[in-house]
């Protein structure tokens, strides 16, 4: 999946994520095939870019739990030094876990 600026989104492309308004309201569900009507609607809503499915999305192999665990540990090690001065901060520690989770997801699914 990939975010594409609205001007470059073409009819026939498929949304890879729910399209949300600034206030978090769902404007378009994921897996919708975009046509002229939807694109006009997005323009009227002032949408900047849309997350679009790519061919390569289908080819992503879901890693095993063990592979995920190893990847997570690798990412954790990479972040250890940067977060060195905030280890006693409970809030930053939870944020770090969330950031690691996000990074793992990015590396698997792009």
């Amino acid at each position, binding site marked *: 999946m990939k975010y594409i600026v609205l001007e470059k989104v073409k009819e026939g492309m498929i949304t890879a994520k729910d399209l949300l308004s600034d206030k978090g309201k769902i404007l378009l569900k994921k897996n919708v095939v975009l046509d002229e009507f939807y694109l006009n609607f997005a323009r009227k809503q002032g949408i900047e870019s849309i997350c679009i499915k790519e061919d390569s999305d289908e080819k992503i192999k879901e890693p095993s739990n063990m592979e995920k665990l190893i990847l997570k540990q690798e990412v954790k090690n990479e972040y250890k030094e940067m*977060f060195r001065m905030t280890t006693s901060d409970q809030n*930053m520690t939870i*944020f770090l876990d969330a950031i690691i*989770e996000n990074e793992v997801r990015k590396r698997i699914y792009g």
Partner: protein
Amino acid sequence: MVNQNKMLEITHIIEKCEPFLSLNSAFIEINSLLKNSKFNKENGFRYIAKDPLMTCIVLSKAANSVDNGRILTLKKAVEILGEDSLKNIFSQQIMQETFLDSRKDENEDFWLHNLGVGIISKIICENTIYSSKADELYFAGLLHDLGSYVIKKYFKNDYQIIQEIVGKDPNKRLLLAEKKVLGVTHQEIGTFYATKMNLPKSIINVIRHHHYVDSSMDDKQNIAIVMVANNLAKGMKFGKSDNFYLEPIPDWVWRYLQLDQTMYYQIISDIQDKFDIATAFIK
């Protein structure tokens, strides 16, 4: 030891300096809109709002054109100036003059860091009871490192020396290195410049105290949010800051923000989405 002459040189340069721009994807986009006669208030706003220096210039020009000075929001500033003035400000001539000796790659990472801090500040704010200030916080976050832009532009050699000091020993804090070389930090230099540019006081306070929230008497809440956002932008590797390490956040900041810890995963996911949306135009 920095001598008195150095301090005088810095204040003199900032007093005399003209508004300047930095080459990055947002400015290239504005330039392309202008070149193709597609620039209008709406799409212009979209890209100006992504860049600290363009935002600073628009806020400053708008403030200078009204009696009581200091405009708080970019939207208001854009309204005051109008389309033609905006076109003039960001004309191709400016790009040619400003960028003859600069390369986009040198500035892109730092710009992305600033954009990231703006986006995160807004999202954090939206998750607190102070959500009505979200737009103001976006611009405070976007502009927080204004002083580093001034150092990069007007004190190139000193900037290199500071980078070498911090690069050789990451334990050396950026602020200490800046003090050693320049006698002042990017927070103070940013404050001089933002004051000269007539930026709103609440933004100036963020620029001045974003590494040490406890040193400020005013706008502590805004500074606290930008401080947390600065940490998260570094942690999420949005662009590159001049300072590698995350900074300790005072306990009272978390008590003040009252963020729901069970929402942290969702907040990080939202931040990633908004950042991807905002940077989708980059070629």
